């Protein structure tokens, strides 16, 4: 993964530097007094940010405190299964778990997590002077309850952005051909019509030039939740459908029950998205979040919505990407009026996604885990972590010279995230996130294969979501 | 089988198409019990309560165990 050896070396250097600062060294070893030799175990998905925490931050933390950190890095599905089983059964196997932003409400509803703010207030000797919640970006708010108490320390955060091939968009020949055909200048799409037009143009252009190029990526894995997420997280909001089309008060999904999951706008959104498949490379129907990134990195698509965590490696890592230096970053295309709604706070244009580490209530080493979470939440470890995993959770990280350097290479992704971040929002505060996703997923899959027309699919999905919510007891 | 006399011990041929011992007959009765209930829930329960199926399958089970 990446240029890990170099990273580890430089990270160790920072760790050493920080441990030579007397106040810090004193705090960590003082606070950990009596906890030396304890082992804390956590579970996370094996992503670059997690691997950095495992390979670099963990050992550094052990050095500072004497507390050992064991990391179980596993697949996305397994991570959920095991964390939930552990907390449900109160077994205490894990002392910290990865909390994806959208599952936090489910966990909070079950009181699965330790209240970090309250626990730190109770034992002030554990509170690190270098851990300050106010230094985090607004993303941290997703992990607070209504009283403002913190339940997870953000470890990664990103937005799903619109990536386009700068080299193609700026190619005079291409520009000319586009203008000749559509009578408009070729520029990153601002709305869905333009997006479709560009997709169509590049697909034909790819065909005629004999290259392997298509107009757009579509995250349309026909048997994986990734496709459901692209619809409800990334496409619906740009059509003004928020919270998955489920009414946040009545928990109704279908129009008849006060929801908007099968509203005309939602149907238009799904139809547009399914329509994009005609201009997407053939692997799109098996593409999850990582595979659209691979498609884009292989230079097979001219534009697409790609998760920001991938933007950095697509734009900079020539071992994995053929489009280094050719990537442009912009906001996703939207329907008229949606940006205004997002600016005023009524809506949003996409998900502000990411995750945090939290402590399960069942943990038997809460003190050690609290120290660990504060350790990874320190200002000083953020910049290198950001380089390793293209994730930013602290405001100050944006100003770090190394991050600024990388920002240039990724066409200002970090700047965009900093400035336009407020237009994006976390997942709706539903405690039934996975359950409803699984209920509607089969119909989205069938829309992808063409077994169902988009409007039929959404009618059925809305009915299934309503039934599931009733069955779960949220809808009376 | 090594011992042929032993094999047929406790086995008999009732009205079931195969030779069975006591375990087999209980097993068949249990299988039928479940099958009948599932069938009932799908097709008959709207008209007749599930209890009827239970009684029916218990009777049927008893017959199989004793005479099968």
């Amino acid at each position, binding site marked *: 993964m990446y240029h890990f050896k170099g990273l580890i070396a430089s990270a160790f250097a920072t760790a050493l530097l920080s441990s030579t600062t007397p106040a810090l060294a004193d705090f960590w070893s003082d606070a950990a007094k009596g906890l030396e030799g304890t082992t804390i175990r956590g579970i996370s998905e094996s992503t670059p940010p997690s691997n950095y925490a495992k390979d670099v931050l963990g050992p550094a933390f052990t050095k500072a405190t004497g507390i050992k950190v064991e990391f179980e890095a596993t697949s996305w599905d397994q991570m959920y299964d095991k964390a939930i089983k552990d907390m449900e059964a109160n077994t205490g196997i894990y002392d910290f778990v990865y909390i994806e932003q959208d599952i936090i409400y489910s966990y909070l509803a*079950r009181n699965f997590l330790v209240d970090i703010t309250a626990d730190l207030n109770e034992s002030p000797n554990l509170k690190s002077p270098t851990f300050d919640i106010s230094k985090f970006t607004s993303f941290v708010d997703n992990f607070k309850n209504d009283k403002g108490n913190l339940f997870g320390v953000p470890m990664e955060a990103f937005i799903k952005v619109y990536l386009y091939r700068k080299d193609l968009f700026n190619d005079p020949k291409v520009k000319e051909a586009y203008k000749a055909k559509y009578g408009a200048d070729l520029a990153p799409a601002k709305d869905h019509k333009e997006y479709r037009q560009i997709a169509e143009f590049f697909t034909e252009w790819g065909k005629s030039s004999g290259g392997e190029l298509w107009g757009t990526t579509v995250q349309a894995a026909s*048997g994986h939740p990734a496709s459901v997420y692209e619809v409800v997280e990334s496409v619906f909001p740009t059509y003004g459908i928020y919270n998955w089309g489920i009414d946040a008060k009545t928990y109704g999904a279908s129009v008849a029950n006060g929801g908007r999951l099968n509203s005309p706008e939602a149907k238009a959104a799904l139809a547009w998205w399914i329509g994009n498949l005609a201009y997407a490379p053939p692997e799109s129907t098996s593409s999850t979040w990582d595979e659209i990134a691979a498609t884009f990195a292989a230079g097979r698509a001219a534009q697409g919505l790609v998760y920001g965590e991938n933007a950095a490696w697509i734009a900079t890592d020539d071992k994995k990407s053929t489009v280094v230096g050719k990537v442009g970053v912009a906001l996703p295309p939207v329907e008229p009026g949606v940006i205004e709604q997002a600016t005023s706070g009524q809506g949003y244009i996409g998900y502000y996604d990411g995750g945090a580490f939290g402590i399960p209530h069942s943990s038997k080493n809460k003190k050690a885990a609290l120290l660990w979470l504060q350790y990874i939440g320190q200002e000083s470890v953020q910049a290198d972590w950001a380089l390793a995993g293209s994730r930013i959770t602290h405001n100050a990280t944006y100003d770090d010279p190394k991050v600024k350097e990388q920002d240039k290479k990724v066409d200002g992704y970090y700047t965009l995230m900093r400035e336009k971040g407020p237009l994006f929002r976390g997942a709706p505060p539903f405690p039934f996130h996975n*359950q409803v996703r699984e209920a509607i997923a089969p119909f989205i899959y069938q829309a992808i294969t063409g077994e169902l027309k988009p409007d039929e699919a959404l009618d059925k999905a809305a009915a299934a979501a309503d039934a599931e919510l009733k069955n779960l007891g949220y809808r009376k | 089988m090594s011992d042929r006399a032993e094999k047929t011990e406790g086995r008999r041929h009732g009205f079931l198409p195969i030779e069975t011992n006591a375990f087999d007959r209980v097993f068949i009765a249990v299988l039928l019990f479940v099958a009948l209930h*599932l069938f009932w829930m799908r097709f008959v329960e709207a008209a007749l309560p599930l209890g009827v199926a239970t009684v029916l399958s218990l009777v049927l089970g008893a017959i199989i165990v004793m005479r099968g």
Partner: protein
Amino acid sequence: MRSSSVGWLFLAPTLLILFVFGVLPFLYVLVIGFTQWNSFAADPEMRFTGADNFRRLVFDDQFLYSLWLTLKFAFFAVVSEIVLGYFLAQAFMRDFPGKGFFRTIHTLPLVIAPIAVGATWRLLTVPGLGPLPYYLNRWFGYEFNISRYIDQAFFTTVVMDVWHWTPLVTLTLLAALSSLPKEPFEQAQIDGANRFQIFWHITLPLLKPAILATVFIRMMDALRTVDEVWMLTGGGPGAATRYIGLHIWRVVFPKTDYGYGSAMSLITLYLTIVLCWMLYAGLVARRDLKRAD
């Protein structure tokens, strides 16, 4: 006849392990199957609901479709494996140069982990990356995309299963063929029977127990396939390869619907046992008939 207590002693460790790791979990699932229990329901506590889960299940289209699909999958896979395995076993009965080498090659798929098999076939079939869609399109103009066309996906999972498990069938039938007595065949040849007659009247009846036993083992395993298909298609496209093992997995884990998922498992286990028992009764009955002679 020696004392049966020694016999029980020999069986004891096996029975103990099967009881603790097989029966205890089963009893747990049996109880949960009659409850409503979902960690993230409005009421997350386990509640006894009688036969309600089963009432819902017998009308659950997705579940029934998945069951039907699994049977279809097991049927096509096992039948192809038996036919193909028989021909390969027959071919291995002759002597030819390099026999040991070819036999090793034909045993290879057996030792690959199902999850790696799924990954391998995914690599073969993903458009843009795999050679299958590329060459099928280039040579025959055929659009092969198992993430879009449901029939292709189903067919590919069957082929994958056949590729993975035919070696086991080949080896079993080869073992059975090598232990067949020679005399009936010699006699038949003297009598001037043709190949088909020999196969139909002598080979097949003699092989029947071995074939039934192989069908039994293979069917049982095919009905609970999860890893390979999960890796290859994730159950898609649509619900085209959402076999019952995978369906249950999605209900129990991402959906955390433990009660309903347990009920599903119980019905699936029940159907598997019924199917296998009928096969088994066929095996035993055949043996008993012979014995009665």
